[in-house]
């Protein structure tokens, strides 16, 4: 129960600090209220009295209003995280029954919540990339098969003159490969300019990173 006693100690410190600030807030609120009333009785308009009374507090007040009363507690424990909330809730209630607890979350949940948006963006990008790759493949297939169909006559003549199967195959494939290389070249140039605009959604990849961004031109 070493963890629990340490937790109780920290909670007591936390609650003491919160109480200190709550008390100070209440003191300052009363002060402002009394000052405001006094200024109104001295003949100031309610608005002017309100502003003047708050102005004397200046930074102290602004500072307090900016800071929230919320606190987060990260508990590192080697017990079942599902029973921990109940234990902590009981502990908090035993120290200060008026202290509300907003929610419990495991570190995994917190982590997955924090990366949910970038993960969705990456998923969308990948899906679009895959779709583009598929379209490119279908297009390439269409162009090559159309060319072969057009050159059936020429291929027949070449084979009649003694060209081997291998040579013909190489000819057709190298044509397809030339098209693909030209596509990659155009794609790389395009990616060079486009990744700059994408840099806000790309995490951990520099805008100009040919190796890792090359999946873009491939698509």
């Amino acid at each position, binding site marked *: 129960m070493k963890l629990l006693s340490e937790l109780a100690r920290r909670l007591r410190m936390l609650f003491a600090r919160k109480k200190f600030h709550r008390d*100070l807030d209440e*003191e300052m609120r*009363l*002060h402002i*209220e009394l000052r405001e009333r006094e200024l109104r009785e001295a003949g100031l308009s309610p608005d002017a009295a309100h502003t003047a009374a708050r102005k*004397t*507090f200046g930074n102290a007040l602004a500072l307090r209003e900016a800071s929230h009363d919320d606190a987060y507690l990260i508990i590192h424990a080697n017990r079942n995280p599902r029973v921990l909330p109940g234990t902590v809730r009981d502990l908090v209630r035993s120290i200060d029954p008026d202290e509300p607890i907003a929610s419990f979350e495991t570190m995994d949940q917190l982590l997955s919540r924090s990366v949910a948006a970038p993960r969705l963006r990456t998923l969308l990008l990948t899906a679009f990339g895959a779709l583009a790759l598929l379209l490119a493949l279908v297009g390439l297939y269409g162009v090559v098969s159309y060319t072969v169909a057009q050159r059936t006559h020429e291929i027949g003549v070449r084979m009649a003159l003694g060209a081997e199967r291998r040579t013909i195959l190489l000819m057709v494939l190298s044509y397809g490969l030339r098209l693909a290389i030209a596509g990659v070249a155009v794609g790389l140039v395009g990616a060079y300019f486009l990744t700059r605009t994408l840099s806000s959604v790309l995490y951990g990849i520099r805008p100009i990173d040919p190796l890792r961004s090359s999946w873009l031109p491939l698509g």
Partner: protein
Amino acid sequence: MVRDEIPPGTLHLLILKTLARRGELHGYEIARTIQQNSEDVLQVEEGSLYPALQRMLVKGWVNAHWGATPGNRRARYYRLTAAGRKRLEIELSQFRRIVGAITRVIQTA
């Protein structure tokens, strides 16, 4: 009307003296009393009054408890402790010594 800020280091003295004379006061009453007793010359900065009161609480010169104002609002009332009374004597003699010294310097000049 010209209002002067409280010289550094004398706020504790003024608070201690005010509490010694008036007994139990909340923050606003302390500020009002200092201002009135100085015939409106000294203006207590709220931004430094409450931190000063907190420091004095920690040092044990005053103690505090929550009570109700005549207007039935919750307020923290401060009261001098024995240590605070002793401290008041120290700060008073220190202040008199310094003022006396400054006066002598000014008069010789």
